[in-house]
């Protein structure tokens, strides 16, 4: 009887199947919605200068503690404002912000470095800060070069979208103990650099003179070495339409630099990103490393400060040092913020002399605030001191990389890093590599100029 009821209970079967499948479809449907309209939050609001603001750190993790300290100081000084800190890994920051621009949920304040500024500005996600800065006690106190660098990176409208906090700089780290043992002079010139790289190499004992960056981030380092040796001081020719990357002097410099691979460097350098490169230098027997101020504390922990020094890049032809620009870091105000007054108060506080000093001492970078740059800790952190001097005493010419080009990140990473590996392996000539990159850059520059006009 029961069987016949169940077998004939078509409605019951339908109901159970419908419930089962309905549950599945309901959950699956959440993955199939359309993208709707742009809910990035519109033009936001000034707010009343009180309440909660959200801050996204663009280099979360290592800097979390110092940011939390700055935030605690701010909240003490502004008890009506509550800052929620969100630390995001630098590698994921851009994609998270891009998703929030499209889908909504942007913070009020975010870390905005020069390298990602053009993309965010192009999506109209950031508020201009010129008028706020003009009325602020910060006006005139921030490093002019860093301000200009931020303006230039903004996408060509000469507006300021990010208040600089700090500058990084390329550093040549070298092992003083190994140099002393080999009777070598400090690698302050490119000739001494090449000589030391060769003399410190003993492949049989797994000792190398230099570690080259062949993986992620290789292009900026190669450009730094190239312009440093060629002495060319501008990324574009006088017309502003053609890049100088494939100038004959740069081609020659790159050939010499890439020739170091496997001759005085480990073969594994082909895939070196900064993590592997720094780890290798800190734990092996390698004479020199090119990186920036950011890894100084890692070297101190691994080697102790008396075993190495970090100096600015070697001096090139005619006694002149030429370096490519490192992205200036800063904080920006997102247009969608509903509490811009409070957000700006936080930006002002975070870039003030006291906070700037505290933050940069921890990060080992050059402060943007002029008063913070005079603080005592700078003279104790040698690479930072030397970098600050090099950036301000006129001895160094900075070749400004075109961070303002929307295609810059693609050209300098996905498009050309594999080709640089081919150059290292001898499968592509330096000229061919630079000609290809120059063509892409010229095209991107032309497009950008057309958009601007």
């Amino acid at each position, binding site marked *: 009887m029961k069987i016949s009821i169940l077998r004939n209970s078509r409605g019951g079967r339908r109901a159970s199947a419908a419930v*089962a499948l309905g*549950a599945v479809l309901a959950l699956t449907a959440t*993955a199939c919605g359309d993208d709707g309209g742009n809910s990035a939050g519109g033009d936001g609001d000034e707010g009343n200068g009180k309440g909660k603001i959200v801050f996204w750190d663009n280099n979360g993790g290592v800097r979390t503690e110092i940011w939390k300290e700055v935030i605690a100081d701010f909240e003490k000084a502004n008890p009506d404002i509550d800052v929620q800190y969100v630390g995001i*890994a630098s590698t994921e920051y851009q994609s998270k912000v891009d998703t929030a621009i499209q889908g909504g949920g942007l913070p009020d304040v975010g870390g905005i470095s020069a390298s990602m500024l053009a993309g965010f500005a192009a999506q109209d996600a950031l508020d201009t800060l010129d008028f706020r800065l003009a009325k602020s006690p910060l006006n005139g106190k921030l490093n002019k070069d860093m301000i200009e660098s931020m303006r230039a990176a903004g996408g060509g409208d000469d507006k300021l979208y990010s208040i600089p906090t700090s500058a990084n700089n390329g550093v040549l780290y070298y092992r003083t103990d190994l140099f002393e043992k080999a009777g070598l002079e400090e690698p302050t010139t490119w000739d001494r650099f090449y000589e030391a790289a060769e003399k410190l190499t003993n492949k049989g004992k797994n000792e190398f003179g230099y570690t080259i960056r062949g993986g992620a981030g290789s292009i900026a380092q190669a450009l730094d070495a190239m312009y440093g040796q060629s002495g060319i001081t501008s990324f574009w020719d006088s017309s502003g339409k053609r890049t100088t990357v494939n100038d004959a002097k740069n081609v020659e410099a790159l050939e010499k630099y890439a020739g170091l691979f496997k001759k005085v460097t480990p073969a594994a350098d082909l895939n070196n990103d900064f993590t592997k490169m720094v780890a290798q230098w800190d734990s092996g027997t390698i004479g020199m490393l090119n990186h920036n101020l950011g890894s100084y504390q890692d070297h101190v922990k691994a080697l102790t400060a008396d075993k190495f020094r970090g100096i600015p890049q070697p001096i090139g032809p005619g006694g002149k040092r030429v370096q490519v620009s490192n992205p200036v870091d800063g904080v920006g105000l997102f247009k969608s913020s509903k509490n811009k007054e409070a957000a700006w108060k936080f930006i002002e506080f975070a870039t003030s002399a006291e906070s700037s000093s505290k933050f940069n001492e921890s990060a080992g970078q050059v402060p943007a605030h002029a008063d913070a740059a005079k603080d005592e800790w700078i003279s104790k952190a040698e690479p930072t001191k030397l970098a600050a001097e090099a950036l301000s005493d006129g001895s160094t010419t900075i070749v400004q990389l075109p961070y303002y080009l929307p295609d810059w990140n693609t050209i300098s990473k996905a498009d050309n890093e594999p080709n640089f590996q081919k150059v290292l392996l001898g499968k592509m000539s330096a000229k061919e590599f630079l000609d290809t990159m120059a063509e892409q850059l010229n095209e991107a520059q032309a497009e950008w100029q057309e958009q601007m006009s």
Partner: protein
Amino acid sequence: MITKEAPPAAPAPARTTPEPPRPAKKRRAWDEAPRWQIYLPLGIYLVFTLIPFYWILLFALRPAGSTSLVPWPMTFVHFEKVWTDRSFGTFFYNSVLVGVATLVMTTLVALAGGYALARFDFKVKRAFMLALLCSQFVPGALLLVPLFEIFAELQMINSLGSVIIAETVFQLPLSIILISNFIKNVPYSLEEAAWVDGCNRFRAFRVVVLPLLRPGLIAVGSFAFVHSWNHFLFALMFLNNQEKQTIPVGLNTLMSADSVDLGALAAGGIIAAVPVVIVFAFIQKWLITGFSAGAVKG
């Protein structure tokens, strides 16, 4: 749109004559091979597999700056650092919550959906199966913005619920297909016998079918747990509060733009790997049985 029930499996033909006894197997060449020919390649393979793990242990247990090839003097300072200073305790708790909730939701819904697919015929069944399979070809990253907007509308951004739902949704298609194959392997006559004994459909399923699905449930559940434990993208995008982040996102923040604490990174990696290793150690027998059983149609 249910039209009819799937026909029960046809009974196996009765055997008429016993098979003649098989001749003793001839020993194959590799049975007589010297032991070293087996153990040497296995040993080499093991070395290649285990060296990276040893390297992680080494960095996690030796002091910062040490270049020793053995973790001595041993220190747990990196573990302390990531667990307390870098909030891995909180991340671990959140990951467990996401993993267990995804496991439970995926298994329950896959059981219901799998049963429907295995036991009922309906007009769009083939199309539905095809849609399930096709959904596997869509990468999660492609659906980030729509998912983000949906969860924002539901006020679920910054809630672990958004990650759990998204993980469940992406686990379901494969899980439903697997479970439905397992259920097809359970003879329909067993359920019918239970009905004869007075069970209704649900009770028959619970008492007769469910115990036989154990390998399949373990396979599907562990797969859902491990995938959600390791998955990075949804937690990164949907969670903004530090207190709600999961282990993979926490691991990512141990590498900054210019600096990396390798000791802390290795310690964090071990903390992230331990639950997965334990899960696999306990369930490997069931897992292998489960996957192989699900692969053969009854």
